[in-house]
C-alpha cells in the first residue's frame, strides 16, 4: 500500500477514481494478498484492469455481460474465504443484480466489495441508461452494506484498502472522470463513518459527497466573496452515517447537502432522516437530482444544468441565505 502524497495525489487524479482503484490499488492488493479475487462483467479493459488481467489471470474472472452472475460468482468465491472485488458501471452493478446483492451480500454477508464506476452522469453522452443516481438509495437500504463515495482518486485508493480490511460487504461509488480536482494532497487517516471537515465557516454548513465535494469547496470560496462563511463537511461514508458530525451541523441555521444523486434516498435523505429525529433541527436544502431523468449531455453540462457545480451551489445558497433563515 502506498501513502497519499502530493505526488501520488496528482498522479492518481490523472487516472481518475476508477483508474486508481483498478489500475493501482487492485494490482497491489493481488500482490500483497493471496485471498483476493477481482471480477468484472466485460469491463476489464475499460475499467483499467489490464495489469490485473495480464499479470494475475488466476485471480481475475470475467463473467461477460451478466451482472446477476457477477454477484453470484463473487459471493461463491467470498464464501470460500476470499475477499472479492467486483466492478462494472455503477448503474448495472447495483441495479441489474440488486436482489443478488441483497440476498448474498446483505443477508448472507458475503465479503464482496462492489466498485461502481462512473456513478452520477460521468457517462456523459451515453445518456440516462448509463447514469446512476439511485444507487446510494438502494445500496444503503440493504442491512450490513457499507456505502462509500470518495471525493477524489486518493481517497478512492484509501477506501479500497479500507474495504479490503473490512469484514463485510462494501459499495464504493466512484464519481468524476479523469483529471478530476484533487481534494486531499496530504496523508490523512481515512476512517469509514468519520466525515471530514474541510473548511470552517459560521453561516452555513455544506455537506457534500463524492465528486461534488470539490465543487462544494469552490462554492464556499465564491460565497466568501459575497460575505457568506460556509463550512464544508465531506461525507465520504453515507452508511454508516457520521451522526456526530451531523450533530455539529445542526447548530447551523442552514445546512445544504450536495450530491450527484437523486434527492430521494441519498445523502440528503440520510441527513434529513437524522435531523428529523433531533430536538434541534436546522433548515436543510437538498441539492441533487430532482425526481426526474435529466437531459443528457457531457458531464459538465449535466452538472451545470442541474445546479451541481460551484456556480449552481453558490447561487442556491446565496438565495436561501437572502430569503432569511
Amino acid at each position, binding site marked *: 500500500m502506498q501513502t497519499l502524497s502530493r505526488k501520488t495525489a496528482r498522479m492518481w487524479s490523472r487516472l481518475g477514481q476508477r483508474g486508481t482503484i483498478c489500475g493501482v490499488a487492485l494490482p497491489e492488493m493481488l500482490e500483497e494478498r493471496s485471498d483476493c479475487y477481482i471480477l468484472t462483467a466485460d469491463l476489464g479493459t475499460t475499467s483499467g484492469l489490464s495489469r490485473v488481467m495480464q499479470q494475475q489471470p488466476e485471480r481475475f474472472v470475467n463473467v461477460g455481460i451478466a451482472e446477476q*452472475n457477477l454477484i453470484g460468482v463473487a459471493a*461463491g468465491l467470498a*464464501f470460500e474465504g*476470499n475477499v472479492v472485488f467486483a466492478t462494472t458501471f455503477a448503474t448495472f452493478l447495483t441495479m441489474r443484480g440488486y*436482489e443478488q446483492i441483497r*440476498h448474498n451480500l446483505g443477508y448472507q454477508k458475503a465479503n464482496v466489495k462492489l466498485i461502481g464506476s462512473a456513478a452520477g452522469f460521468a457517462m456523459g453522452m451515453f445518456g440516462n441508461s448509463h447514469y446512476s443516481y439511485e444507487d446510494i438509495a438502494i445500496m444503503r437500504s440493504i442491512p450490513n452494506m457499507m456505502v462509500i463515495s470518495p471525493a477524489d482518486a486518493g481517497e478512492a485508493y484509501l477506501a479500497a484498502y479500507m474495504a479490503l480490511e473490512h469484514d463485510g460487504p462494501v459499495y464504493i461509488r466512484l464519481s468524476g472522470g479523469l483529471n478530476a480536482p484533487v481534494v486531499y494532497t496530504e496523508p490523512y487517516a481515512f476512517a469509514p463513518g468519520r466525515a471530514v471537515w474541510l473548511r470552517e465557516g459560521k453561516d452555513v454548513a455544506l455537506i457534500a459527497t463524492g465528486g461534488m465535494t470539490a465543487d462544494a469547496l469552490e462554492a464556499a470560496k465564491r460565497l466568501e466573496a459575497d460575505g457568506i462563511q460556509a463550512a464544508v463537511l465531506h461525507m465520504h461514508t453515507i452508511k454508516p452515517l457520521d451522526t456526530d458530525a451531523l450533530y455539529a451541523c445542526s447548530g447551523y441555521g442552514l445546512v445544504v447537502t450536495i450530491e450527484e444523486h437523486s434527492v430521494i434516498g441519498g445523502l440528503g435523505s440520510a441527513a434529513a432522516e437524522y435531523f428529523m429525529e433531533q430536538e434541534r433541527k436546522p433548515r436543510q436544502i437538498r441539492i441533487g437530482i430532482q425526481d426526474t431523468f435529466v437531459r443528457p449531455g457531457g458531464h459538465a453540462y449535466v452538472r451545470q444544468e442541474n445546479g451541481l457545480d460551484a456556480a449552481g451551489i453558490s447561487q442556491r445558497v446565496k438565495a436561501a441565505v437572502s430569503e432569511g433563515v
Partner: protein
Amino acid sequence: MMQKEQVVEMAKRMRLKALDLAYAAGKTGAHLGGALSAVEILAALYGGVARVDAKDPGKEERDRILIGKAHCVLAYYTALYEIGYLTEEELNMFEQDGAFLTGHPQKDVCRGIEYAGGSLGMALSVGAGMALHAKRRAKEQRVYVLLGDGECEEGAVWESMLFASKYRLDNLIAIIDRNHLQSDGSTLAVAGLDRLSEKAEAFGWKAVCVDGHDVGQLMEAYCAGTDGRPLAVIADTVKGKGVSFMENDPSWHHAELNEELYRKARREVEEEDGACRR
C-alpha cells in the same frame, strides 16, 4: 457413505418425517409437492455420494451442497437430520415462530446449510464461484446445486450455465428436479419449458437424464464422467411422489395437511414397499 439399499430406507424415513413435519406445521402449511419429488435426489446425494461430515461441518475439503429450489426444505431438513446435522428436537421446531428451521433455509454451515435459499435462480452462480475457487486452487471438492425445473425459467440460471462452461467447471454438478410442475401448472404450459437436456448440452454441459426416484441411477449419475464439462443431472420425478392424492397435483405445491389426509398419506408411504426402488 451408505449402500444403495440403505439409501432407499433413508428416503422412506425422510418421506414419513416430512409428512409429520408438514402436519405439525398445522395451518401454516408447508411445501409438500416439491419436497416429495426431491426425496430420493437428496437421499442419494447426502446418504450415497457426497463427502460431508456432520461431525466436522466446516471441514475445508467437504463437498459443497447448495439448494436452489429451497422450497424442498421438508426433504432437505430431513436429509440433514438423517446424516446427523440436525437433532430431532431442532427438526421438530420446523416452522415454529422464531425457530431456526424456516420455510426457506437460513445459512448455517455448522448445520450443513451451505447457502440460504428462497429466491430462485441464485444458487448456481454461487456454486459456480465456489467451484471456480476449488479448481484454481486444485482442490478436490465438488459442488452440487439442486435446482427446480421451474427455477430454470430464471434468466440468471443460464448466465451461470454459460459461465460454468467457459471455465470448464467439471467439479460443478447441477441436479434438476424435473417434476414438470410449478405453482400455476405445468412447466410447459406456464413457461414453455422443455428439452432441458438439449439446452444444457447446448450451453456446453454434459447432461444425464435419470429416473429421479431411483437412488441407484441417481448415485451413478452424480459420478458420471464429463470430459471436463460441468454436469447436469436431470432427474425425472413426480411432484408429490409417494402420496396418491398429491402426485402431479400443483395444489399440493404448498398446502395444509389435515389429520385425515395426514393419516392416509402416512399409510400410503408406509405400505409402499420398494415402489420407490424400481
